[in-house]
């Protein structure tokens, strides 16, 4: 038999002790907006997240915008944007695409799904591109392809290394065959840059999939990844439905890819700047030597 605690205590009639200062009223404070971690469920205020480069205490890397990433990676005030004016148009008349572009421009506050430019990382000059997950999930259309190919050509002409950060759902289906052509175009530009003896380092962020994985994302001389990033061609759901088998929970995770030799290293966000700077400086010395 379980006994329940069925006690009712009376309240003593003691008056409140006097003295001290009047307590602050907690209701006056405005609670800060916090974000909940999908991995551990803990909420962290935005100010604390910003200080921790948008990484939860459990290690989960929150998705960040291209500009945020540039501010985390590049030296202060060193970034100069290239091709900022390019933006996509609905060439094929794909239903709803024009509207989608408009809303993406408004929500991501970017004209396209990639931001390109020149920057210094730990004092090392480089060409830098960072994909924008908040613009149609970083998908690659003709303009993304053009900007990335343009950046590689610029870097090849200037003898600069390229540092790229990929976050993408793959080719942009609203641009059909035109988006698939970007795979060949960007790969060609990477090859030309490489043939000139230039260094290309890519950092794969969550997720890097589809046509982006199948082209310039895996073409780096050094391939780094963020902890827990999904990197693959077809998404887990598609693969699962095709092979009709339950996939392991770590399917396409960066940690598994590293084990199988597809990656060189997994670098936590806090170390990315220093690791990339070190790699750029090693590469530079080797070239000059």
């Amino acid at each position: 038999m379980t006994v329940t605690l069925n006690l009712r205590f009376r309240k003593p009639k003691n008056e409140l002790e006097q003295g001290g200062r009047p307590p602050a009223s907690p209701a006056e404070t405005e609670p800060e907006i916090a974000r909940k971690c999908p991995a551990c469920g803990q909420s962290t205020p935005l100010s604390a997240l910003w200080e921790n480069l948008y990484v939860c205490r459990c290690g989960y890397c929150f998705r960040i915008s291209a500009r945020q990433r540039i501010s985390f990676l590049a030296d202060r005030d060193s970034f100069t944007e290239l091709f900022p004016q390019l933006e996509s148009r609905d060439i094929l008349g794909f239903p709803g695409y024009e509207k989608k572009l408009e809303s993406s421009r408004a929500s991501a506050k970017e004209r396209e799904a990639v931001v390109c430019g020149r920057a210094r990382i730990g004092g090392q000059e480089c060409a830098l591109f960072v994909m924008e997950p908040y613009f149609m999930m970083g998908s690659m259309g003709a303009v993304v392809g053009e900007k990335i190919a343009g950046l590689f050509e610029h870097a090849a002409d200037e003898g600069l290394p390229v540092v790229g950060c990929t976050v993408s759902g793959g080719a942009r289906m609203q641009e059909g065959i035109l988006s698939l052509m970007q795979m060949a175009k960007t790969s060609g530009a990477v090859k030309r840059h490489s043939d000139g003896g230039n260094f290309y380092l890519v950092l794969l962020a969550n997720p890097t999939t589809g046509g982006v994985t199948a082209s310039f994302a895996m073409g780096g001389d050094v391939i780094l990844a963020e902890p827990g990033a999904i990197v693959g061609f077809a998404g887990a759901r598609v693969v699962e439905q095709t092979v009709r088998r339950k996939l392991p929970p770590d399917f396409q995770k960066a940690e598994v890819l590293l084990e199988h030799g597809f990656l060189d290293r997994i670098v936590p966000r806090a170390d990315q700047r220093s690791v990339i700077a070190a790699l750029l400086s090693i590469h530079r010395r080797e070239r000059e030597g």
Partner: protein
Amino acid sequence: MFSKILVANRGEVAVRIIRACKEMGIATVAVYSLADAESLHTVLADQSLCIGPAEPRDSYLNGERMVSAALASGAQAVHPGYGFLSESAEFAALCRKHKIAFIGPSEKIIALMGDKSEARRFMQDAGIPVIPGTGVLPDVKSALEAARDMGYPVLLKARSGGGGRGIRLVQTPQEMEKAFHIASQETADAFGDGALYLEKYVFPARHVEVQLLADEDQNVVCLGERECSIQKNNQKLIEESPSPAVQDALRAKLVEAAVRAARTAGYVNAGTMEFLLDEDKNFYFMEMNVRLQVEHAVTEQITGIDLVKWQIRIAAGVPLDFSQEDVCLRGSSIECRINASAVGTVKALHVPGGPRVRFDSALWTGYSVPPHYDALLGKLIVFAGSREDAIRKMQAALCELVIDGVPNNIEQQLDILSDRDFCRGSYHTGFLKERGE
């Protein structure tokens, strides 16, 4: 003064704090995990809120939930008790941010004293004797070098340790590597910080601690010492005040050192400085506990000062209304911690009474001890004119205490109390180990 306080703890300490609030006319908010829905503190408080599942990190260790509960209930202050969030600088800062008073020192002091190696350096600078030791060690090699210079045996200690975890005795160089890795892993798991430092192993030694109260006007008073050498695996079992090893001259030195350290640190609220006392009566600073101690009751008995009430008053900005000269240590008080040795349900409970017998507990007949938290069932505290009388009173009280249904350590406590060395007051931290415990 605060009109409503949230008690961010469970068990006997939550009950203890709620009782103090009731005397002061302060309304109380209890918080509880799902495992504690049938707990005494939930019915004793004026209001109670469930803050999550049994797992401490989702309930009693979750600062955000605590603050949410305080905001939701309109509590103006939070009393953290001991354990859980009581030594979390992060939690103290979170409270301040939401304009809820944290009943304890500032987050700066908590952070300083929480870093055991920084705290050591601070005390050394303040002229307090510390045990010869090192700063944080980067690896096994540096530990071996430091130990060689210091001479074995040495103690490996965790920077962020507590409750005896992350402490390893190393007698020979051969034991170092294994001990280093185990201690580092243990504290990394428990506290998220694997940093270790070395200390000379002082043995035999006594664990003597000094109770302080400091207000915002920098008035610091010392409420005497507590002897806590009866320990099992670094967990205290019996505490007494005054310490049989401390005479007036030594006490004056201890008080002077503790007060000086608290003043230098700008300490506010209740705190305890722990010292190790060697056979030649040299004392060394070990650590400072920036919270209420489990064993605070023995100090209350011999000083007549209610520490919990003063914690609340100091947090509300009330200055101390007595000075060091007014503090009078009278008689002798002993506390026995009654611990569960397994989970169970209390079938019958009888609590001893009579003059100067106190049992601080959250037990009730029908209470089931949850497996998720510490083993403390209650604290039996007695007070008498002399140490000898206090031991007699404790013997009698322990024999009268009945907690049927939950295996416990009452028998072991009786054995200790009738031990000749204990009765003579000549014992050290190795007391139980020497007796095969």
